[in-house]
């Protein structure tokens, strides 16, 4: 199987001079098509930073990133938008919905940005909303949704553009375990079914059995451990 996403020797230093913090120190990761990777680690260990770099939202201090075998860390910022729009689905740690769009419009905005709003897109939005149990909330604004509902909308939004890779930062943090598990299950199924890839940051150990692989981040280092080992630990 081909590598969907390759992170090669990524380092990230915040600030400069005396106050600089090295959050990531030459970490590497390969994610294959059809693979669902979980990232765990203590708070402040750089998980969100890692994910932002993988998602072309943050440029690394050094290192290279390949998405679908194309090196993306050399691409100028304007084209980065296009890549995020077409290839990457992002679920942020906090839902970050647009306050003045209804649930349905949050999803329809994505094809709109890509310049291809049509019946297909509406159908896709409908399907996603149904699958995430948001059908009855389609014309609500984010302000009237619960935290979990918002998070589900964010997940649906990430799937809207049919991305090659989904990057999710604690997508289940504000969901009850049943709903959370359903969401992660959905992520896993979709990844398998359509040969996509996904990286999920999570604190919830109960979700890890749905993932193919778990990686640990600590002290700027990334270490791999098989799923089984994690379960027993």
């Amino acid at each position, binding site marked *: 199987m081909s590598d969907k996403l390759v992170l090669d020797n990524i380092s990230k230093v915040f600030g400069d001079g005396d106050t600089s913090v090295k959050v990531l120190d030459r970490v590497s990761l390969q994610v294959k098509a059809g693979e669902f990777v979980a990232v765990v680690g203590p708070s*402040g260990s750089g998980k*969100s930073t890692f994910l*932002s770099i993988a998602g072309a*939202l*943050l440029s690394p201090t050094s290192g290279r990133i390949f998405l679908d075998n194309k090196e993306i860390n050399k691409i100028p910022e*304007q084209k980065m*938008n*296009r890549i*995020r*729009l*077409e290839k*990457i689905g*992002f679920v*942020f*740690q*906090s839902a*970050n*919905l*647009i*306050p*003045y*769009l209804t649930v349905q*419009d949050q999803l329809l*905005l*994505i094809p*709109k*940005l*890509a310049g291809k709003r049509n019946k297909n897109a509406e159908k896709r939005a409908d399907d996603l909303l149904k699958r995430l149990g948001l059908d009855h909330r389609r014309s609500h*604004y984010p302000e009237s949704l619960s935290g979990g509902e918002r998070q589900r909308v964010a997940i649906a*939004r990430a799937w809207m*553009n049919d991305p090659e890779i989904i990057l999710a930062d604690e997508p289940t943090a504000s969901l009850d375990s049943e709903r959370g598990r359903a969401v992660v299950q959905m992520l896993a199924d979709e990844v398998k079914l359509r040969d996509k890839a996904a990286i999920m940051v999570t604190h919830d150990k109960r979700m890890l059995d749905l993932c193919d692989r778990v990686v640990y981040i600590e002290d700027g280092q990334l270490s791999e451990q098989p799923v089984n080992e994690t379960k027993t630990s």
Partner: protein
Amino acid sequence: MFLALREFKHAKLRYLLVALIMILIAWLVLFVSGLAKGLSSDNASSIQNMNTDYLVLQKQADNRLNRSVISNDTLKDVRTFVSDKKSTPLGVQMTTLTKDGSAKKVDVTFFAINTNGMLAPDVAEGKMINNTTTNEVVADSSLKDNGFHLGDIVKDQASGKIFKIIGFTKEQSFSHAPVIHMNFKEWDAIHKANARGGEFFNAVALKANQDKADQIDNSVSGVDVITKSDALKGIPGYKEEQGSLIMMIAFLFVIAAVVLAVFFYVITIQKMNQFGVLKAIGAKTGYLAKNIVSQVLLLTIASLIISIALTYGVAFILPSSMPFDLSPQLVLGCSGLFLVVSVIGSLLSLYRVAKIDAIEAIGRAV
């Protein structure tokens, strides 16, 4: 527009308030401009509307029509350069009138003209005078507010001469006084009675190009050829009054412009977070720019339309003693400026939007 319209819909109250502020500012600017313009034309509409390019004045007159004295000889000299048709004498005298049978006095300005020449005013009501009458005049319609009517007999206080108003003209004032047009027969009669004697007038109106004007200025001795706007400045009090008014309007414009620009800047800055999110999910800066600008344009245009309607509405019910003159050009200019300023305000913030790092904007949960 997808985002712009939905945001309007969701935050109705917020944008209604924004629109209200813009309406008020635009209204203020338009209304005060109209009043200022009204005041200036109330002062000097007779010169502003005069069908001439240049005025020939006596050299020592300091560009002041009422100080200048031009003789027939000088007119002849001038007419060696331009045809009789394109030059015509003008007499100007500020004086006081009384209405026959009443003690009330009004200040007026007499304009003596050739009634067949280019300075003849349009008569809006009644009849026009001709060159042969000896006691008929046409007056500016603002005299009607002072209780004068068609057919009224008026008396010139200085000469004691009596005239009959047979027509009313529109927008003919000089130094805030209504203008009364008469022919040169009557003009000479006044001045004979005045014992000043001799035929004279104050200026020669010229229809000519710049070259001709310069030529006359250089060749005819003892005269200055000045433009209409120079002549305006020579109306007693005109320059000072315009100075204050222009200052007032300029300040108003600058303050309104700054307020609007800052306003839109702040509104856009407040939404930085959302722009970050939009960028993170793949929106191009251009797309965001289009939405911001279309939002500002929609708001500004809607507010401008309302404030223009308000301005004209209020102007309509204004008493005629409060001169108000808002030309479509002024409204268009004003509106254009407002649009430009609002868009600049939002473009300033667009620079920030363009530079924003998506991840910074989202704000990391710690």
